[in-house]
């Protein structure tokens, strides 16, 4: 029995905007926060609606925390209200005609009427929103609304909580605060969370398990650092919008000079100043299209990293060419066909990679 999500479904959506859509998702994760990551149109929301019970899969199984919610083989399909699965939407969707307390008390059907208010206030307390109790949803900020939505979904003690891009409408600082709160709430309640996002940084920070969804299929499943260090496929890397994902060790900081040094595993690079202690592990992303390639050694450039390497493989990617360059750490570099022809690029050839310090972005 798994404490998380055990899902194996085929969901077919009727022709909608842009034709029919088919989701084939199969993965199993343990307790904690399962982050479903993927670009828009990957099928993330469809997956959530299937788990919630608002969309019926053509076939398959949905088992959450050991409870079977859907099983086409056994003709089991619990109604939405019997699933005990909470949901927090991107735009929170609090009931606008009810005040904050009534919103949170809405799902407390099993609590005696007299105690509902008290229990709702306790739930608000856990998300630090006790002082908002008397306000109407229209009077709240985006971050406050999401707190209340969290309290509303968790108050009845659900067996799982689904979060549909809950932070995408918030600013960076509210995201950080709410992300920390989410991690704490998950630990306290022990309820498995299924968190959908298209923000890789958020996925890395929150996820106990990472499910990469692309084009209606699961591209990869695993602990985030593992997925980052070794994307199983170009599809995964591309879905993440960051073809180069490195797990490195911070070697030192040079605040006065504005950079940090990171060992990517044999190749040391300069990055923008990182807020990570020396010796710690850090995940860095780098887009294949952000790397310059030169066949001659280059001098007098502002690029802080000039890395000598050897082309180990070439492959076409749409109308462009993707090169693999060992420095010895392998970099994926995206160049045009014209550049490959003009420079005569081929496997075995020595080249130099130019990477700006700030082209590396921190993921974890």
């Amino acid at each position, binding site marked *: 029995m798994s404490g998380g999500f055990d899902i194996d479904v085929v969901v077919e959506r009727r022709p909608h905007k842009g034709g029919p859509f088919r989701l084939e998702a199969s993965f199993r994760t343990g307790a904690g926060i399962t982050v479903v990551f993927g670009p828009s149109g990957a099928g993330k929301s469809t997956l959530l609606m299937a788990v919630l019970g*608002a969309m019926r899969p053509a076939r398959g199984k949905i088992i959450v925390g050991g409870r079977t919610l859907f099983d086409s083989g056994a003709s089991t399909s619990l109604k939405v209200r019997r699933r005990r699965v*909470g949901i927090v*939407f991107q735009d929170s969707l609090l*009931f606008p005609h009810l005040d904050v307390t009534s919103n949170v008390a*809405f799902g407390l059907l099993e609590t005696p009427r007299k105690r509902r208010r008290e229990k709702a206030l306790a739930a608000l307390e856990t998300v630090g929103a006790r002082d908002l109790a008397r306000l109407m949803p229209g009077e709240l900020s985006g971050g406050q609304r999401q707190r209340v939505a969290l309290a*509303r979904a968790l108050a*009845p003690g659900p067996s799982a909580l689904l979060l549909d891009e809950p932070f995408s409408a918030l600013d960076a600082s509210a995201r950080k605060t709410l992300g920390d709160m989410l991690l704490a709430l998950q630990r306290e309640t022990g309820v498995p969370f299924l968190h959908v996002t298209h923000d890789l940084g958020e996925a890395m920070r929150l996820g106990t398990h990472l499910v990469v969804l692309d084009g209606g299929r699961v591209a990869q499943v695993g602990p985030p650092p593992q997925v980052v260090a070794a994307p199983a496929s170009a599809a995964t890397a591309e879905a993440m919008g960051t073809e180069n994902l490195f797990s490195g060790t911070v070697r030192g900081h040079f605040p006065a000079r504005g950079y940090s040094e990171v060992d990517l595993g044999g190749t040391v690079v300069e990055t923008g100043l990182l807020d990570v202690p020396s010796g710690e592990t850090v995940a860095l992303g780098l887009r294949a299209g952000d790397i310059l390639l030169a066949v001659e050694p280059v001098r007098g450039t502002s690029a802080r990293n000039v890395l000598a390497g050897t082309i180990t493989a070439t492959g076409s990617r749409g109308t462009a060419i993707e090169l693999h360059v060992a420095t010895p750490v392998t970099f994926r570099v995206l160049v045009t066909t014209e550049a490959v022809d003009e420079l005569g690029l081929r496997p075995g050839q020595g080249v130099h990679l130019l990477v700006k310090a700030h082209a590396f972005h921190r993921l974890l």
Partner: protein
Amino acid sequence: MILSALRLSLLVSALATALVAVVGTWAGWILARREFRGRELLDALLNLPLVLPPTVTGYYLIVLLGRQGFVGGPIYRGTGWSVTFTWVACVIAGAVMAFPLMVRSARVAFEQLDRRHEIAAASLGHGRLSTFLRVSLPLARRGLAAGVILAAARSLGEFGATLMIAGNIPGRTQTLPLAIYDAVISGEDRTALWLSVLLTSVSVAVMIGAGRLGRGARKSS
């Protein structure tokens, strides 16, 4: 005579509106939320009274409810009572004519709701009826209130269908619009004028009252 016509008009309008508010909300919900064969046909049929001459709608009501009617016949043979030429017929005529306005408003109001509100309510353990009463209905109240106002105004001014099925019996089925018609036909210009002013005043009062109701509903949202 004038007073009884006014009293009857208000009674008929109030009852017809109440009937239409309940049934029209339900019909609007079905049209907005359920997908079934013949939905468009049903929608067209419900809207017919808007485009047909009221006399034609009235004629169909006679065919349906008259002493020889499909429904009215058996009732008459069984009980000796017929709805035609009674004040109840005025209510039916007013309700049928006002019905499409309510259904349209309700349908639009429900279609504009974000369905995820209903999904959220269901995920919090609420069944269909509870979700409807606690979430969908309150969220659609502005559109529903507008429908009720239109229905009230329409039934208050009903003339053609009423004349067909309820007749024009002073003191029994003569509503204000019918009384005005009588007054004009028989050359009682002063009565016609006073009745028209009266009906206009009552209508204005109804609209203002209903408008206040609508604004009150909006304020609390």
